[in-house]
């Protein structure tokens, strides 16, 4: 099932926006206006493609590198910047209210996806929990436990491994002796499929099939989407310490964005004018988001107490009362 040209243009634009947003975030970090940031350069097709296969009422449980999916789902770029800029309100996004915030402890959100999917199943709602995590995460017990429980209970969940070949400096070959990560599905009694994660149409199509299956009560799936982390692990990392530039250069031949653009050009659906128009549009949208981010009034320091519990317990109320912002 190929995407319609319009749909493909939508995917292409979303991937380009993700990449431009990513570049902007790195620039903001380099100039001291953002905290540590995890770039998704090169793997946009996985994140965007998976989100594009979802319905609004499904729930996304993203890794920390899934800006593409989160923006597609309606998280505002200014909210994402707020999160990476060190402000909790960035995860109180206005868009997909039931989607999870990014998971920082690697793979620990996989059991949450099973819980969310169980909630859907109990309420007999035709909704699906979609969980994205990295190749490194597949070594974790939480992921194995989550896959197993989702399999036993035939939960409406889709687990997507974004295999970008690296977990900081650890290549996937040092992560597992399994032939593919998709095979981890066998042990959980669910279908597992490895696909080219740089082919956005294939990602959408595969994810859509897994989602339909889950929605239809046929249980969970695992998708391994092969891609490549083109950038450093985060802005705090220097990948040259552990991998060859030559390897990275070779990978540019697989760039999902260039591939999609070529396909659109071949279809006669895209040209220089559209490209330039889109880039200008994205640059302007990102500029506006940065302005909104920069103009967001700071949280009053005393609010640090206010979301630990629904109601302030006495001991915390006491600490709050004695708190003086000027002491920091």
């Amino acid at each position, binding site marked *: 099932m190929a995407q319609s040209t319009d749909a493909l243009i939508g995917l292409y634009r979303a991937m380009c926006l993700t990449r431009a947003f990513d570049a902007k975030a790195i620039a903001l970090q380099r100039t001291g206006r953002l905290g540590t940031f995890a770039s998704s350069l090169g793997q946009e097709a996985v994140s965007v493609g998976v989100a594009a296969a979802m319905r609004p009422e499904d729930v996304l449980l993203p890794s920390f590198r899934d800006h593409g999916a989160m923006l597609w789902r309606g998280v505002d770029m200014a909210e994402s910047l707020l999160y990476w800029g060190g402000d909790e309100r960035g*995860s109180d996004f206005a868009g997909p209210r039931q989607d999870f915030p990014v998971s920082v402890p690697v793979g620990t959100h996989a059991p949450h996806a099973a819980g969310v999917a169980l909630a859907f199943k109990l309420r007999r709602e035709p909704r699906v929990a979609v969980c994205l995590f990295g190749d490194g995460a597949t070594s974790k017990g939480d992921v194995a436990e989550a896959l197993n*429980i989702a399999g036993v209970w035939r939960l409406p969940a889709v687990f997507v491994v974004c295999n970008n070949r690296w977990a900081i400096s650890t290549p996937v070959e040092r992560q597992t002796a399994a032939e593919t990560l998709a095979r981890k599905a066998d042990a959980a009694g669910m279908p597992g499929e490895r696909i080219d994660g740089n082919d956005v149409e294939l990602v959408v199509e595969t994810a859509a099939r897994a989602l339909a299956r889950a929605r239809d009560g046929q249980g969970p799936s695992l998708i391994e989407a092969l891609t490549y982390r083109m950038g450093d692990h985060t802005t705090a990392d220097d990948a040259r310490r552990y991998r060859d530039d030559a390897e990275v250069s070779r990978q540019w031949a697989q760039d999902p964005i260039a591939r999609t653009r070529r396909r659109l050009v071949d279809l006669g659906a895209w040209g220089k004018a559209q490209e330039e128009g889109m880039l200008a549009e994205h640059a302007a949208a990102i500029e506006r988001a940065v302005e909104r981010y920069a103009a967001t009034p700071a949280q009053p320091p005393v609010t640090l107490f206010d979301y630990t519990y629904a109601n302030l317990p006495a001991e915390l109320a006491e600490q709050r009362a004695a708190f003086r912002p000027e002491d920091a």
Partner: protein
Amino acid sequence: MAAVTMVQAINMALARAMAEDPQVVVLGEDVGRDGGVFRATEGLLDRFGADRVFDTPLAEAAIAGVAVGLAAQGFRPVAEIQFSGFIYPALDQMISHAARMRNRTRGRLTCPMVLRAPNGGGIRAAELHSESPEALFAHVPGLRVALPSSPERAYRLLLAAIRDPDPVVFLEPTRLYRAGSEDVADDGKAAPLDRAFVLRPGEDLTLVAWGGVVPMALAAAERLAEEGISAEVVDMAWLKPLDTATLIESVARTGRCVIAQEAARSGGVGAEIAARLAERVLDRLAAPIERVAAYDAVLPYPRLEAHCLPSETRLLAAARRAMGRA
């Protein structure tokens, strides 16, 4: 009204909570058909059905993690860990997610879940079936930690824990599960949140305890009364947050405090209690604060266990020291 054991009272509270709130679900290892290895969930599967009570695979991180996911979706999961000695894989979920979800989403997603587990020694059980890891949880902002010490308090504290909109770790003293029974009205009344119980008023000395050693503190108070010492017994019940007000009020009045803690001594909740008293009522103390706790040794197997855990003898000795009657 019938006399019930603590484990029956817990069962009663679970059934009550499930009957009044369809969002309450129960999950854990062997909690369904088997009714839990201690029978705390007995009859719930038959009464509420397989959509409310789930046997999970043997996977503690997933039990807690699935509960986080359910809770974020508006359910009120009560998850059982079979023994607190096997709760450690669930710590990550409780600390990294359950305790933080409200804060990190500014209230958009929350975690109204309860993680129950049998806790503590005195039951001559196998290795890792007798530990008291409550301090690990009591250290974590965003969690509540409760330990009952009688059937009635178990019933009311568990209802409070289930109704609380934040995550609660509920540790049930295994040694008290069937230690005795008392009349408990199944009236749905919850204990107040974060509040200690003054179980016995007294004037000369405050005995502070929680969980499995509360009956020991009450027995010690009885003995002390025979010696002409009037001991007040405070059951903390909630270890996070701590009811400082009740503690301060009592110790400011009695001027003496002995803390009975079943867990290992160092870094335990008793240390936090002693610190708060030192901060607030040092000038009212007539004697140093005493802690009677398990020694800082790996908890022995059943043959030596009683030598490590606090005993009434040690408690009485500490109380007499505090009274200057050593």
